[in-house]
């Protein structure tokens, strides 16, 4: 097809991976469409593993459209979303996890999401999963040696060693699993609900946070008419900020409604920002919000309108002793007090595991990944516990096989006879 588009090639494909300036002509009329850079990537050394070509054209809307149209008339069709990566997967160029990473990379809306997706695309997560799987295969090899070769030169492997190594594998699985809660939020952003009684400064804060963040992608009305949602990147991490202030308290009935809406959001939140003006005391409304927060979701108490009370003066009383919040920050949108502190504090609360691990560690970003790693972890722990309880090793080994399968399904590879290969590599076997 490339040859039909670029007749000056005279039927000969250009040298692989070398850019050439060529005239592109209409395959039917022969009319010149554009002069552009053409690079030829023969398979399997291409992104998809199949023959492909890349054209760099002059911009605008008309030229690319004309060339695309010419391509279609020469026999091409438009790729569907994700098709290039799908083909790369089917041709064995990337595994399942890497393919997911490509999709995430394209959609990344924050620095942290981009880093995680890129690491995944580059095979970081796949490698980690493969290492963990190898750890399990290693355990199976020890058991295979234990069972299949009772009369060898080397003495039998002590069970304590197997228990110890199982513990090590479990620990590494746990570390990876711990990235899941934060990792899964990376793609959509952490649902962060601004709650508080009417006139507690939620909306001004909402606007201030959006104004602060330069990485706003969208700010659109929420799915319900009574809340506003916006995506925002704070400290490099993605958040979905929800302001429930869409309803103004003209009368008591509506006011109650507003609180109801807020409570609905609160129940799904990853983080609650509870606003309480500095000059108002903790009351029943605040307690109501707090009671709606699911267990484990961090709560930040924002003492808003700091500028309303004189510097040095005492704030109105906060929550009574025994009611815990993860942080208390004094804020004023008038003079900017506390906005930086909010930005610095929030990522650590929601993306705990990730912030601690640093940017390069592999992260689980999908439920599918978390489920597989969790299953593998549970099976390895079950194996270790069974061995410790005196269950025969060859029986307990059933757990290891399940763990291995879980990880294989995750990256989409299937094993050969690696257990035996490992045994032969490590032990001198046979009479």
């Amino acid at each position: 097809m490339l040859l039909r588009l670029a007749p000056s090639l005279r039927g000969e494909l250009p040298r692989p991976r070398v850019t050439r300036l060529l005239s592109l002509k209409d395959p039917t009329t022969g009319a010149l469409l554009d002069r552009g850079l053409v690079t030829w990537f023969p398979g399997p050394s291409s992104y998809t593993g199949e023959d492909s070509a890349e054209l760099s054209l002059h911009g605008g809307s008309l030229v690319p459209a004309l060339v695309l149209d010419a391509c279609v008339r020469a026999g091409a069709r438009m790729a569907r979303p994700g098709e290039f990566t799908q083909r790369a997967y089917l041709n064995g160029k990337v595994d399942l996890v890497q393919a997911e990473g490509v999709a995430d990379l394209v959609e990344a809306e924050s620095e942290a999401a981009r880093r995680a997706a890129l690491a995944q695309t580059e095979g970081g997560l796949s490698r980690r999963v493969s290492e963990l799987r190898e750890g399990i295969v290693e355990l199976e090899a020890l058991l295979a040696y234990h069972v299949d070769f009772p009369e060898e030169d080397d003495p039998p492997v002590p069970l304590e060693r197997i228990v110890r190594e199982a513990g090590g594998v479990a620990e590494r699985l746990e570390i990876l699993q711990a990235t899941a809660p934060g990792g899964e939020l990376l793609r959509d952003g952490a649902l962060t609900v601004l709650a508080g009684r009417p006139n507690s400064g939620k909306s001004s804060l909402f606007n201030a946070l959006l104004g602060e963040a330069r990485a706003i992608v969208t700010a659109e009305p929420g799915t319900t008419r009574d809340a506003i949602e916006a995506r925002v990147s704070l400290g490099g991490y993605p958040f979905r900020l929800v302001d429930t202030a869409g309803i103004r308290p003209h009368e008591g009935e509506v006011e109650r409604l507003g609180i109801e809406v807020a409570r609905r959001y609160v129940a799904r939140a990853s983080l609650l920002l509870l606003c309480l003006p500095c000059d108002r005391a903790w009351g029943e409304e605040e307690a109501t919000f707090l009671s709606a927060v699911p267990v484990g979701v961090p709560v930040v108490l924002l003492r808003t309108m700091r500028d309303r009370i004189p510097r040095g003066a005492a704030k109105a009383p906060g929550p009574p002793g025994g009611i815990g919040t993860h942080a208390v920050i004094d804020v004023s949108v008038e003079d900017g007090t506390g906005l930086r502190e909010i930005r610095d504090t929030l990522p650590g609360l929601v993306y705990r595991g990730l912030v601690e691990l640093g940017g390069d560690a592999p992260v689980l970003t999908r439920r599918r990944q978390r489920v597989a790693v969790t299953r593998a972890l549970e099976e390895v722990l079950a194996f270790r516990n069974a061995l410790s309880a005196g269950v025969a090793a060859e029986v307990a080994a059933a757990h290891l096989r399940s763990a291995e399968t879980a990880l294989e399904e995750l990256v989409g590879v299937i094993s050969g006879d690696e257990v035996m290969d490992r045994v032969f590599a490590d032990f001198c076997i046979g009479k």
Partner: protein
Amino acid sequence: MTRSYDVIVVGGGHAGTEAAAASARLGARTLLITPDLSRVGQMSCNPAIGGVAKGVVVREVDALGGVMGRATDASRIHFRMLNRSKGPAVWSPRAQCDRGLYPRGVRRILDGIEKLDLFQEMITGVWMEGERLGGVVTRGGQRFSAGAVVVTAGTFLRGRIHVGGEAGVPAGRAGEAPSIELAEALEARGLEVARFKTGTPPRVDGRTVDFSRLEVQAGDVNDYRFSAYVDEPIPEQRVCWITWTGEGLRKVVQENLGRSALYGGAISGRGPRYCPSIEDKIVKFPNAPRHQVFLEPEGLETTELYVNGLSTSLPGDVQEAFIHTVPGLEEARITKLGYAIEYDYFPPHQLRHTLEVRSVPGLFFAGQINGTTGYEEAAGQGLVAGANAALKVQGLEGFVLGRDQAYIGVLVDDLVTKGVDEPYRLFTSRAEFRLLLRQDNAPERLGPLAERRGLLLPEQAAALKDRRRRWVEVREWFRSEVLVPETANKVLREAESAEVNRPVRAEELLRRPRVRGESLARAGGAPFAGNDELVAAVELEVKYEGYVRREEDRARRLRDQAGFLLPDDLPYADFVTLSREARDKLVRLRPGNLAQAGRIPGVSPADLQNLVLEVRRARRGVAVDATDEPSQGSPDIL
């Protein structure tokens, strides 16, 4: 004149004898042809039968009515239950046999089977009748016609023996001619052929061994029998001896490596890693200070000893030199030199699960010709191939064992779906259901099936029924017997388990880890105390009920997948939602069902799911577009 049979078996080794016996038991008129009838059932390598996984296969062959278990019982002169210190799930019986008594036992059993004829002659070719096999031709030009032919040629196909770095001598076994024409005739049918090697150690004269320097390895004293159906009288028992190689041997071998057929380049075929030559051991594990050597008696009436552990292809003078470095063997005289042998095999992906050659209907292969090693692996395949040859002639459904039914099923399935890249032997870790596939329950697992398919003789069927009755008796005793604390605590103390202060049922105690069924049976005065095998069977099923059930669940899922059939003519190349690697493998191997497809290395769980969609859509006559959303995830789709 052409003599005519239902089934002809070519070869009289462990595969051939089982094939012929199974075919004849099924009522097919059967002929076994082999170049030397005096060597039927010969043990070409070490005089031992059984071992880990292999011992279970012997039990399975026996449960299916086969020969090997009985012949082993009748000839065993040393017996050990390997893995006895581990759980009963992996107990593995192994016997040293008298090299003379074993084949005599085989011959006696074959002679007792109606419809089975024996004939001595070398087969040099096969002839076709249209698309299917017509029969075989002998070296003398005699033709035998048959409805099906089972070829079990062992290491004889273009066999070549190496002692030292010379070019080697054509031979099928030491001192026997190879089979060259048959190999050529089969290759001419378009079959892919490849080459493997294996080896044996030297044997020494026991009168020249200094036994005072050796460690004695005594056998277990019991009347364990491989055969569940016939109690053969067990011969007098002997001991084995253990000694070790050391620095001296390492030096001799290293200095002469260039003269080894293996390391001098004379042999190209690939050998088994689990049966390494002494050259291999020294080269691959140079830091191991010593290697075990087992001296195994060749028989009751000979002083010859098999030097297990020193398999080699070094020249005679080097074998002599290294043998003399081994403690106890300083003065030993070699009676037979060790050697390496290279031979043809036909990569087994060319077979169906019935062991019939895909491209030549009516032709079946079993044993080393399929790239396996081991008497037991050969016997298991022989039984499957022989039974299927007979069933084919009779127009009946094939006999295929599942991976959840038997090690033989694992063996055949591995061969057919994965192929081999080194001589194949069984290990327990090849089986996904090893809690189900035990030596103790082989008769319960396979006996009823064998009876249903007509593989058992009437007396075998009667013995099976009797055994079932005893099994139920043991099971019932544990279920109903109540032990008083005094009795129970004796056993519990011994097992370091918490004591009880009230009467408790035997079964409840049996569920505890470390509490052994045989101890409970003895303490409780059970009428069957001492029958360890049935007790162990019940113990395992009670103690590990949860795990056993888990395996049964997995086995059921596998059977569901096995029920999803993949026709032979599926256009795998067009299934664009499958990875390229999966497509290539499926085109090559053409699995019969989804479960088999899933075991092919390179076919991932996601491929498997998409395969189901492709097949369903292909059935509906709808083409699948590469861009349809493929489903990715667990293969448990059925």
